[in-house]
């Protein structure tokens, strides 16, 4: 197990005026399990990167000292393991066992020792498959378990976790938390938005202050009791605080869209549903059930293989006799707005404001949306440089720019902090009460209940269909 010691630590990325993190004094003892919290931009990830020895001093400006077991982190690399957010971009090899062996090979471990160590690491994270299992055939949660095995295989004294569950659905996140609870012999430092579920297995919470220094440090109960409201306002998911509720103001309105025996082989077939104005519909179900596919079918972005999506005259006017996937794009955007899981896919211009004027019928609407989604201060910024929460808000704004009657969103609250989450829920509730239809694919039960959304549950894929 390792100790961590920071004194007046600060780092500024090259070409930036602001310090990413500054004035941090921190001691972490053997075996402590610590969560680093703070609003986005407080420098949590920068601090983790410094501890992992991934920030060479020449890459930017450095202040103060950081030590792991009394050594510079770049010389203590073999004492540290780190797991990042996205499983896809941290697995290196095609087969699970080879991937775990990767870190051992890099450190010059004798080949005869490798199979035994790999087996032990896979066992430690409860990996349920043989080492020859293809990494691409694993679910997100299983991939993240494998990444943990890869980070633990050389027996590090310090385990760093940079939002390890942010990209996972609830069952996947549970898999990762179980491993973290079971892993002994390491000091753990975790950065995570959804801290509530982790609180039970933490010894200590450290809150970074965006301007520099540390705002709070102590046992979770104490920190949340003393700073809970301020943390929640900054976007931290403080456990136990009630979430806002926005039940529908009135009954559902007219029918906008209807799915009749709708199918997209081999994902699902035979689906019936209706989408109404002034109603929120939550599409729920396990991974692989075809929720995102359904969102794209309803959004007119994908042609069904079976059945049809039929639009009513209320939504489509003269085009009601044709299915949405045959409409011209401009007509589609003015009727059905789609918000993708990854906001970056939707950006087509170099400025936030241009994104909104591109689709807007009149420029006043663009300005109105900028203010409404708290993006007015960023109007001139490049969409790709925004933070995750800002990108999410912008992607919703772009879908609203052409004033569509129906909004289809894919996992809108995925990985969002509490503040962005609350804003999104309030916005969607307001749109619904103005008479818009809202369809959201979601794993987020809190989101569904906050909107009082009707649930459309897709089943798990049937084996016979999955095999095709």
């Amino acid at each position, binding site marked *: 197990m390792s100790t961590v010691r920071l004194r007046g630590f600060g780092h500024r990325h090259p070409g930036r005026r602001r310090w990413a993190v500054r004035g941090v004094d921190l001691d972490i003892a053997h075996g402590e399990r610590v969560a680093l919290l703070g609003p986005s931009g407080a420098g949590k990830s920068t601090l983790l990167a410094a501890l992992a020895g991934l920030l060479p001093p020449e890459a930017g400006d450095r202040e103060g000292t950081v030590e792991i077991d009394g050594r510079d982190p770049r010389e203590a690399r*073999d004492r540290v393991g780190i797991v990042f957010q*996205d499983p896809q*971009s941290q697995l290196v090899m095609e087969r699970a066992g080879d991937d775990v062996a990767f870190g051992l090979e890099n450190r010059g471990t*004798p080949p005869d020792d490798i199979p035994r160590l790999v087996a032990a690491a896979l066992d430690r994270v409860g990996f349920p498959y043989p080492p020859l299992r293809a*990494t691409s055939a694993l679910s997100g949660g299983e991939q993240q378990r494998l990444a943990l095995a890869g980070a633990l295989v050389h027996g590090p004294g310090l385990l760093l976790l940079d939002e390890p569950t942010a990209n996972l659905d609830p069952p996947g996140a549970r898999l990762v938390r179980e491993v973290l609870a079971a892993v002994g012999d390491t000091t753990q430092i975790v950065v995570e938005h959804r801290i509530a579920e982790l609180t039970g297995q933490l010894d200590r919470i450290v809150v970074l202050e965006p301007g520099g220094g540390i705002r709070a440090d102590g046992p979770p109960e104490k920190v949340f009791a003393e700073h809970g409201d301020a943390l929640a306002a900054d976007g931290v998911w403080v456990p136990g605080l009630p979430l806002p509720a926005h039940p529908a103001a009135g009954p559902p309105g007219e029918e906008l869209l209807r799915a009749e025996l709708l199918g997209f082989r081999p994902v699902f077939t035979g689906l019936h549903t209706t989408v109404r104005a002034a109603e929120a519909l939550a599409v729920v179900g396990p991974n692989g059930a075809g929720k995102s596919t359904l969102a794209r079918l309803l959004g007119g972005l994908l042609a069904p293989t079976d059945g049809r999506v039929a639009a009513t005259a209320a939504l489509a006017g003269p085009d009601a006799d044709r299915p949405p996937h045959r409409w*011209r794009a401009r007509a589609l955007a003015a009727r059905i707005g*789609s918000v993708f899981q990854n906001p970056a*896919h939707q950006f087509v211009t170099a400025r936030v404001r241009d994104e909104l004027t591109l689709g807007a019928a009149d420029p006043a609407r663009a300005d109105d949306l900028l203010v409404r989604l708290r993006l007015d201060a960023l109007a001139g910024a490049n969409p790709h440089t925004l933070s995750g929460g800002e990108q999410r808000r912008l992607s919703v704004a772009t879908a609203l720019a052409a004033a569509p009657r129906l909004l289809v969103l894919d996992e809108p609250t995925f990985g969002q902090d509490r503040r962005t989450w609350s804003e999104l829920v309030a916005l969607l509730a307001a749109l619904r009460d103005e008479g818009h239809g809202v369809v959201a694919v979601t794993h987020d039960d809190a989101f569904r209940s906050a909107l009082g959304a009707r649930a459309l549950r897709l089943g798990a894929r049937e084996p016979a269909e999955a095999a095709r």
Partner: protein
Amino acid sequence: MNRATPIADPTAPLARRNPVAKLAAAGVLALALVISLDPVGPAVALAAELAAVPFFGLRYRALGRRTWPLLVGVAGMLFSLVLFAADREHIVASALALALRLLAVALPGVIVFATTDPTDLADALVQNARVSPRFAIGTLAAWRLVPLMGEEWRLIGQARRARGIDPGRDPLARLRLLASASFTLLVGAIRRGTRLATAMDARGFDSGVPRTTARVQRFGAADTALVAGAAVLAAAALTLSVLTGYFNPLFS
């Protein structure tokens, strides 16, 4: 699916050979076939290559599915050369020779990738051909991300349609849309690649310690025999083309 995913029975006698030996054999043949512009050498080599296909654990049908773009390309080239040539009689012979040569050079490469696991190839390149691990393993890791880009490309297209952007029939608008979608794809690929590189370094890829290997690739007598066999075939093809009087060196 990737065009370089193995589709062969991995236990077949030649499929089991060391990937570096397979690459070397393909290289020897290619080298011999570019020396001469005649049709005899490539015809001999192509016949022998086709005869060897079952020993690589490949079915002809699977091979045909894998190579159809190549076959279509060669047929198209043959067709246009013959159709548009002024001196038709002369061109038919050279066009045929060219088509044979293309197939005879390309087929060994197709066979190598159809019968070789990418991980084994990277391991063998490092262990048997002394290629830098930073290059071989780095390329292998990047290779894993390629299928993700196909899905990404579809999503970007759909997202653009959702934004109300479709080029219609205007070719200029089509080109602009293609360029901007490619840019989005590139930005995403670079971000993902950077994250992967960081994750690899965090696991000691840049440690500077001499790397060990968990999977041993052996280069044995059978592997040497495969390369020697290819050399013999290359020599036989060249000899036949000289003896039949068709030999026509590239640089003369």
